[in-house]
């Protein structure tokens, strides 16, 4: 038997004097090589243009395991027939003489062929039978053709299966030569040492194929966008707040923000409360007293909410529902340390006990910015928001009046989306209420302008993700992490 090189030489030599090889399978048989081996050679020669190979498909039939056994031992119905003695036999005895599968298939078949009868002994109804099935199976093995009806019957009995033969028809290719020298794919150290690189023929490079993927790690797409937002805040002179405290008291999360204790956001179906640690024990007591007073009776020019404020409600621990809980701690601290103008920002997790769906998770990242200074105006807020959002590429903004318990005025921020051709809400903003700031001890001419948005929403828009769980959490596709682009918001 020849090897691949021998087959290649024989094939090219054959084409030198013949126009075509019509069937590579027959050619392989004549050569005495395995067709699989020849096929490899054909593909390689075709790739280099030595030959032109076209697919030839042929369907034929092949015996199954079962069919193969019958072609040797005879069909089960004939085996059963042969096992029945002239005087008849009990069914049990007959079964004992034969294989289980032979008996169960063969007996049924022999009965339906009316070869046997039971009365009640099993006995022959005809004298002699011919094993047609066995003959048919042997014919198929020899490559003979059978009628469609016979093929169908054998197929139904799962004795034969179709087999696809793939072969090639071959003519000379554009680069045909009676022999070929192997082309090189790489420049090797050996070629440089022996200086053979100029004599070697190189295989043409397939520029259509992708290169080899790079190795190395990848950063998470959501955090790449977080990095961009952090940079924008830092460039704009904002100082980051320490937000690494997910567990917060209702006091700092709600009461300090002048959010009344009956507010729906404080319901158990909006907020996660904690069983352990269930409550906060220590507060700045004098400040807590001022907060209680502003809720119950008002003060600093406010009439308050006029209800019985309960310390137990304020003590209840929650998973913070917004990073503004941290802002309230920071502003209180600023009032105690002595006021200086500040710009603060944070980007961190917040928690909502809401139903989870394609756009809502129980936790997400809130981006928050605030400026605390004397003499701030709504015009300043609008100006800062324009600066901030234009750095994200949103240059056209407008503002809608809204309601929020701790900001007044409150403005929803809309940006004109050029592709969607409409105004899209991109965040919320406002001036913190005096009822929040003055009990902290901040000077009464200090105001705070603030805004917030989620990190997930702009990221989903940026990367074209429509299910938040594909972005954040364990169901993320690692391929997404590896293949997402750099964050060029606003570039």
């Amino acid at each position, binding site marked *: 038997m020849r090897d691949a090189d021998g087959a290649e030489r024989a094939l090219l030599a054959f084409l030198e004097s013949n126009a075509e090889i019509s069937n590579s399978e027959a050619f392989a048989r004549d050569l005495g090589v395995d067709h699989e081996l020849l096929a490899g050679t054909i593909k390689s020669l075709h790739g280099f243009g030595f030959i032109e190979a076209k697919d030839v498909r042929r369907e034929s039939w092949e015996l199954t395991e079962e069919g193969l056994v019958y072609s040797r031992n005879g069909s089960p119905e004939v085996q059963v027939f042969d096992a029945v003695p002239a005087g008849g036999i009990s069914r049990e005895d007959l079964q004992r003489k034969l294989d289980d599968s032979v008996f169960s298939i063969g007996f049924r078949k022999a009965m339906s062929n009316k070869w046997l009868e039971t009365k009640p002994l099993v006995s022959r109804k005809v004298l002699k039978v011919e094993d047609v099935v066995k003959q048919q199976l042997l014919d198929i093995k020899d490559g003979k053709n059978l009628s469609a009806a016979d093929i169908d019957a054998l197929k139904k009995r799962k004795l034969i299966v179709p087999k696809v033969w793939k072969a090639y028809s071959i003519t000379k290719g554009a680069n045909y030569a009676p022999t070929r020298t192997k082309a090189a794919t790489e420049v090797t150290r050996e070629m440089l040492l022996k200086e053979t690189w100029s004599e070697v023929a190189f295989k043409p490079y397939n520029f259509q194929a992708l290169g080899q993927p790079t190795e190395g790690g990848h950063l998470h797409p959501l955090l790449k966008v977080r990095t961009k937002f952090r940079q924008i805040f830092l460039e704009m*002179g904002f100082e980051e707040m320490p937000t690494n*405290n997910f567990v917060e008291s209702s006091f700092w999360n709600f009461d300090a923000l002048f959010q009344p204790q009956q507010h729906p956001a404080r319901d158990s179906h909006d907020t996660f409360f904690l069983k352990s640690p269930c409550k906060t024990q220590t*507060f700045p007591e004098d400040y807590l007293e001022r907060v209680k007073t502003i809720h119950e009776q008002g003060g600093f020019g406010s009439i308050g909410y006029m209800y019985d404020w309960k310390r137990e409600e304020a003590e209840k621990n929650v998973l913070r529902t917004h990073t503004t809980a941290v802002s309230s701690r920071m502003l209180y601290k600023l009032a105690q340390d002595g006021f200086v103008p500040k710009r603060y920002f944070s980007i961190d997790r917040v*928690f909502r*006990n809401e139903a989870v769906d394609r756009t809502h998770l*129980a936790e997400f990242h809130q981006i928050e910015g605030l400026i605390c200074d004397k003499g701030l105006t709504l015009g300043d807020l*609008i100006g800062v928001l324009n600066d901030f959002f234009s750095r994200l590429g949103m240059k056209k903004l407008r503002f809608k009046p809204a309601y929020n318990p701790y900001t*007044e005025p409150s403005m929803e921020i809309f940006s004109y989306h050029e592709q969607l051709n409409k105004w899209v809400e991109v965040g919320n903003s406002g001036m913190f209420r005096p009822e929040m700031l003055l009990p902290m001890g901040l000077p009464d001419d200090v105001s705070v302008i603030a805004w917030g948005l989620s990190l997930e929403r702009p990221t989903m828009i940026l990367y074209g993700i429509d299910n938040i769980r594909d972005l954040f959490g364990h169901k993320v596709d*690692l391929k997404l*992490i590896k293949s997402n682009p750099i964050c060029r918001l606003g570039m």
Partner: protein
Amino acid sequence: MPTVSVARELLHTMLGRVYTQEEFDELCFVIGIELDDVTTEKAIIRKEKHLQENEADEDEEVIYKIEVPANRYDLLCPEGICRQLRIFLRVEKMPTYRLSRLPDSSILKMIVKPETAVIRPFVVCAILRGITFDQARYASFIDLQDRLHQNICRKRTLVAIGTHDLDTLQGPFTYEALPPSEIKFIPLKQAQEFTAKELMEFYKSDLKLKKFLHIIEDSPVFPVIYDSNRTVLSLPPIINGAHSAISLNTKNVLIECTATDLTKAKIVLNTMVAMFSGYCDEKFEVEPVDVVDPVGRVTRYPDLSLRTMDVDLSYIKKSVGVPLQAGEIVDLLSKMQLTSKEIDGDKIQVSIPPTRSDILHPCDVMEDVAVAYGFNNIPKTRPKTSTEGRQQPLNEFSDLLRLELAMAGFSEVLNWVLVSKKENFTLLNRKDDDKIAAIVSNPRSSDFEVLRTSLLPGILKVMEHSKDVPRPVKVFEISDVVLLDPSKDVGAANSRHLAALYCSTTSGFEIIHGLLDRIMNVLNVPVDGYTVGPSNEPELFKGRQAKIFYKGSCVGSFGIIHPQVLKNFDIPDPCSYIEMEIERFL
């Protein structure tokens, strides 16, 4: 935010012109309400019955669904929205709500019994005389009560409204609290008499009413209102009596609001009468009721008096950032239903109508000036003070480490803080000793029971969902876990952790060990500055795990994940893992 349905035709009639949808949308935007949806009555019914959209008729009446701010109770009905829009567009002047002038002797009384104090201590009442209902007004009257119940009344816990046909009743009325078995009446929409006790049982299967039963269920006495003939008006906050039910033909309506919060009861009553006194023979006139408390003090309701608030003009100008004149401010406020006049000392005096309970502080007046002026007409400015940008050292440090981990060939994952108890403990071969983890008391599902105490459950869940990803897989996360900490005011604290996992056909323990060495290298900890020693963590494989010691204390551990843990998370391939605290290295 609450949503109110208003017929488009009614809006156009009330506003005196036809608006295209875009124009109306724009008008809403400017004053801070939102056109949320456009539909038809029949489409709403079809939706409820899950019928096909294509059965729509051409001539169906178009309904605008309008979202209103949660603190503007006066916008919870079409009457209120139209009135605000008309006043904003200067089609209508601000109405003056007033009490009818009656001699004290002819004012009806509501006498409050002391027993009510234990269950629902407050009641306020008012009468709408000579009201004319039609189908739309009647429906709106009912809808407004529903919306108030849903919003400010906090599902009837704080306030419950009852409305009655006054002509079927005989004053004076008494507000009492009695044992449930002693209260007996025919409730609304029923034909037979029930005791209050039987009713509580009966309504357990009523989809709408069963959610209010808890408000009084466990009390030994139930609140109840009687007239002088011992006719039951209502069993608040559950149901009214059938006897005094109102209908389209009712001319005189008694409104009672029982409450646990008197301030909110007054707001609710004022909202009801302000919205519907417009349909009375004497427009915007309301007949008062004297409420006599258990010690005999008499208070007349509703209180429709105007509240006044003095506001510095300079405060408004400085806050909005526009140099407005006093006259301009007065004019702008009139568009927002606030009457005001200039007074001495660079101030204006603002009269706040009973409908504007949302005005608590001069900042609310300032906002109305800004809204009426138009947020989008305010010129952009920049705050003058400059400040320095600064990062939190821990976050800056974490970001630098994240880059190093990525450069070391690991890809970043980002998992939830909330996990199930099973994931945080049992599946990691760990037991909850109640000493380390913060536990959520009201999770919607078991997925959010506990705050993770390590980054491991999240990372293993990632691997569970990454069976098809070609091996080796290398992932990392630098994030916070939460641990109980009695030294903190809230009793718990975040701790920033670094975790990395290697997963392939072989465990790759030496790869994770190498990563530890690399981390220490970039942290500038010399090779003799940290040690590893044997450990016995249940989530790691025995003999293939170690603790990491730095300056004498343990900062983390690494090893091969225990095969049982891998099986628990349905991970088919071996994994090695490292997790350490990083704040120690800051």
